[in-house]
């Protein structure tokens, strides 16, 4: 039976795929059957009746809904018949009976399917002259979304999205007939992390973007296809601006990355360009105070400051810290400046050398859709990559993928059937050893002596068997397990398990930051050059020396932690780009103060920038061209959407001018004048990027292949690392990312200030023992220091641990880190 069939619409034969919906086949033939409820990403429902057409049946012609009718061979359809036209016109008239027709003040006006369909299919006038039904207007479903029940045409798209993609069916259809409304259950929540998708899906102006409303008319927006830079997924979105102010973000389809969804942080945290806190002028420390100076003076001060240190102490006394939030171009040029101009390999970033990430990130985001088992270790996609979490939920529900989780918290995805392990910090390797042992036993393979003592129990055996039996597992580990004391043992032991199960090549790493992958790819590491080529590789150095027309130092440099720890010693000057160590760790603030010279290139006057000798105001990613590389090695463009604020300048331009001022004799190697040309240079410096051009990255980006770097994996013994107990500090610290933190991006967005719970979390038994209730103020203490915050009691927390999110205002997790970071022993006092 062929899948290609023929159907007839209005006497015209058109080809169609067996089983596809009639609306889709018709659209391909150029017949646009109007729909409201139908949406390619949602299950067909046939609620709005807008797509009525006539079908020939043995009993004569019948009106059917084209959006719910799969095509079949020989089907005969009448779209333009009098009855079909009349039916659609009647439907539209019915929909408009109670619609307020307030298009002039409706945000949707100009991009509204209801307007468009009324123009194409509607009656010129209405039979009705009675008063319209009145329902709730400007009704907040949440802090972010407003509902106008009068504009709503009851298409169910929002209800279906929350049910089908988020598995959070928090909206429903209530009451009956003309009184029917969409609403939440009384006092209910609308708290899905991608809730804003329902604004994009709404075919009328019923659901509007609360922070953005009334700030534009759709036809006057400049629409720039771009990406989101809040996490490592790199969701595709569109930046809509007017008068060089970003007005809103809407999702852009890229099925391989984010389908057609973006999370609420990506959608609503778009105020960075209008934040009054943005740096607009270069600043220099004059007589102890940071004061505005011209760009020329600022750059001259940077040149003389760095040159002075280089002359007094040598280039190895200078270091630079890049950023996993900054573009490839920024990180590449910072590396080129440090290595090629200054002559130092002291080069790293926060998520750099110390993070035991797979250098290739994760194999493929799209693989999440086809998974038959999902294994998550030390990562929480709901908080760290919310759109990926929706894809995983869908795989769990629609493909019955078992969900296996190893995490110190019971994360959201633990609600799906599978196995959930909550090892306490320090107990992870023993658990993974047990899983490895059970896997080897299940496969009838010999158990090495070092695994013979591993625990056995039924759940461990079941989880091990499930992974071993899976055909298409989607496997991730994350930063919770990839840094700090003991991380090497955790990563080695979890790699052993996955390798023993035969899935070593599917083990991926979930990067929390937008350009963690790219920063590493650009050589923002003390021992790797662009393209992940080892510094020790003489050929790689030679290639780069030819390209950069300079000589490169071959001694590996200091790491992020090493540079900060040496700030009172051999490091005398630091150049920080988009890095804020002082905000995260008070001890680092003290270290930075000891430097001879500190340059900070930043968007905001952060805790670190306040300590600088020169502050260079950088353009945000929406204000300049750039590329970012997501967790699956997809290089994507983020073109300029608006002008930089004030005198801020793009990172690449600042660094180019700086290098030319520092070493005029090397100006020829610093002659690119556009990001497109600079990206071309990057593809030469980083062979992994060969073949890519600014143009051919296109709207959907390009990946470098997973196989380009091959890692040989086998089950190997590793060096255990026991976390020492400390009776004075009976709890164990767990730090991690949560979507709604107090980071600079959210601090710049007043609309988002109230989102999420910003507190340390304790299990109810620990809270009860300490006499604490949600909302109480607490002080967390470790040997390194203390932070004050509030407590939230949460039974998802492992007893004996306290969870502290990164980036809580006034409670920098780094204050509690010691050499056991970030698994310190802590106490509550």
């Amino acid at each position, binding site marked *: 039976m062929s899948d290609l069939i023929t159907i007839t619409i209005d006497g015209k034969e058109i080809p169609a795929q067996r089983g596809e919906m009639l609306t889709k086949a018709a659209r391909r033939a150029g017949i646009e059957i109007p729909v409201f409820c139908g949406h390619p990403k949602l299950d067909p429902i046939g609620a709005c009746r807008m797509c009525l057409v006539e079908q020939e049946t043995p009993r004569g012609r019948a009106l059917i809904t084209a959006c719910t009718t799969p095509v079949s061979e020989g089907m005969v359809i009448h779209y333009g018949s009098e009855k079909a036209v009349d039916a659609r016109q009647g439907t539209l008239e019915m929909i408009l009976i109670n619609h307020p027709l307030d298009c002039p003040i409706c945000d949707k006006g100009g991009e509204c399917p209801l307007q468009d369909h009324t123009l194409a299919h509607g009656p010129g006038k209405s039979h009705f002259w009675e008063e319209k039904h009145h329902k709730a207007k400007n009704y907040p479903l949440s802090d972010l979304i407003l509902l106008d029940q009068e504009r709503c045409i009851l298409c169910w798209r929002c209800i279906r999205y929350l049910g089908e993609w988020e598995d959070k069916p*928090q*909206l429903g259809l*209530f009451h*009956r007939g003309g009184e029917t409304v969409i609403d*939440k*259950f*009384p*006092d*209910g929540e609308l708290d899905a992390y991608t809730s804003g998708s329902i604004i994009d899906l709404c075919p009328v102006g019923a659901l509007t973007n609360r922070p953005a409303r009334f700030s534009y008319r759709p036809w006057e927006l400049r629409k720039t296809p771009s990406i989101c830079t809040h996490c490592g997924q790199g969701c595709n979105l569109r930046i809509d601006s007017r008068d060089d102010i970003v007005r809103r973000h809407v999702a852009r389809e890229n099925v391989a990355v984010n389908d057609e969804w973006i999370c609420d942080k990506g959608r609503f945290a778009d105020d960075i360009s209008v934040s009054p806190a943005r740096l607009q002028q270069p600043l220099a420390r004059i007589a102890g105070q940071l004061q505005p100076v011209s760009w020329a003076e600022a750059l001259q001060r940077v040149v003389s400051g760095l040159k002075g240190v280089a002359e007094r102490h040598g280039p190895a006394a200078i270091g630079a810290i890049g950023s996993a939030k900054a573009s490839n171009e920024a990180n590449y040029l910072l590396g080129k400046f440090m290595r090629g101009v200054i002559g130092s390999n002291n080069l790293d970033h926060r998520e750099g050398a110390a993070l035991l990430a797979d250098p290739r990130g994760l194999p493929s985001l799209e693989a999440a859709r086809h998974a038959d088992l999902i294994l998550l270790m030390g990562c929480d996609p709901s908080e760290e990559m919310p759109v990926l979490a929706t894809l995983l939920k869908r795989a769990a529900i629609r493909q019955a993928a078992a969900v296996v989780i190893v995490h110190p918290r019971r994360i959201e995805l633990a609600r799906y059937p599978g196995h959930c392990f909550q090892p306490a910090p320090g107990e992870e390797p023993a658990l993974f050893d047990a899983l490895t042992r059970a896997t080897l036993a299940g496969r009838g393979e010999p158990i090495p002596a070092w695994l013979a003592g591993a625990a056995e129990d039924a759940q461990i055996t079941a989880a091990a068997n499930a992974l071993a039996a899976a055909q298409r597992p989607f496997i991730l580990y994350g930063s919770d397990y990839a840094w700090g004391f003991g991380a090497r043992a955790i990563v080695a032991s979890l790699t052993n398990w996955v390798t023993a199960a035969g899935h070593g090549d599917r083990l991926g790493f979930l990067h929390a930051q937008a350009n963690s992958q790219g920063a590493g790819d650009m050589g923002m590491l003390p021992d790797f050059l662009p393209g992940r080529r080892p510094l020790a590789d003489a050929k790689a150095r030679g290639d780069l020396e030819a390209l950069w027309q300079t000589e490169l130092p071959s001694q590996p440099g200091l790491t992020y932690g090493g540079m900060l720890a040496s700030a009172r010693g051999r490091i005398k000057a630091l150049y920080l780009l988009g890095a804020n160590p002082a905000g995260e760790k008070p001890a680092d603030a003290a270290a930075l103060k000891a430097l001879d010279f500190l340059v900070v290139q930043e968007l905001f006057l952060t805790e670190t920038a306040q300590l600088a000798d020169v502050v260079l105001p950088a353009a945000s990613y929406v204000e300049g061209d750039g590329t970012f590389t997501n967790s699956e090695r997809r290089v994507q463009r983020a073109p300029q959407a608006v002008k930089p604020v004030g005198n801020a300048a793009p990172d690449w331009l600042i660094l180019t001018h700086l290098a030319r001022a520092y070493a005029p004799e090397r100006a020829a190697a610093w002659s690119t004048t556009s990001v497109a040309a600079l990206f071309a240079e990057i593809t030469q410096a980083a062979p992994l990027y060969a073949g890519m051009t600014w143009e051919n990255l296109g709207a959907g980006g390009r990946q470098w292949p997973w196989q380009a770097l091959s890692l040989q994996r086998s089950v190997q013994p590793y060096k255990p690392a026991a976390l020492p107990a400390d009776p004075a500090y009976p709890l164990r610290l767990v730090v991690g990312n949560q979507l709604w933190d107090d980071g600079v991006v959210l601090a710049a967005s007043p609309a988002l200030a109230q989102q999420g719970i910003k507190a340390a979390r304790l299990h109810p038994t620990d809270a009860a023992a300490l006499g604490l209730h949600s909302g109480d103020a607490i002080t967390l203490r470790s040997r390194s220091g203390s932070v004050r915050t509030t407590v939230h009691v949460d039974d998802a927390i492992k007893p004996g641990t306290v969870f502290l999110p990164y980036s809580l205002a006034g409670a920098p997790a780094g204050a509690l880190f010691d050499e056991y970071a970030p698994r310190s022993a802590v106490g509550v006092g």
Partner: protein
Amino acid sequence: MDMQSHAGVDLDLLEDVLAQYQGQRGALIPILQKAQDVYGYLPPQVLQRIARSTGVAVSKVYGVATFYAQFYLQKRGRHILKLCDGTACHVKGTPVLATALEDHFGVQPGQTTEDGALTVEVVYCLGSCALAPVAVLDGQVMGRMRQEMLVRTVQKQVGAAGGEEV
């Protein structure tokens, strides 16, 4: 609907009903009916408990409960007066009866007296048009109603606490 006004609902009373339909698909409407038999109406906590037990989203449970006229989401009085406002009854004076009830008991159709004694509801045609206007008090059909008679009968049934003396 705020939770405050539904305080004191004993969810344990629901356990027998839920146990009876445990694991049965499509049993939502009978469960709602039996729950209403237990509580007289469907408080939000009860809907949430039913949602948890059946695995049906609470937004769907609430959708069903609001769709059918047989389900009540507000506390009802100990006595129920149904006032027919179908065409025949309307013509024969139901609006006057409604006004009289409001004057004497302080409740409009759809409301319950503050002491919880009486709920007045409007229905559309009880099929007894020959007896218009028709009222039904606690299941007792009363035809050809006049305002004094209605007020007096309700007064008697509800007792002295139900309103002022006529």
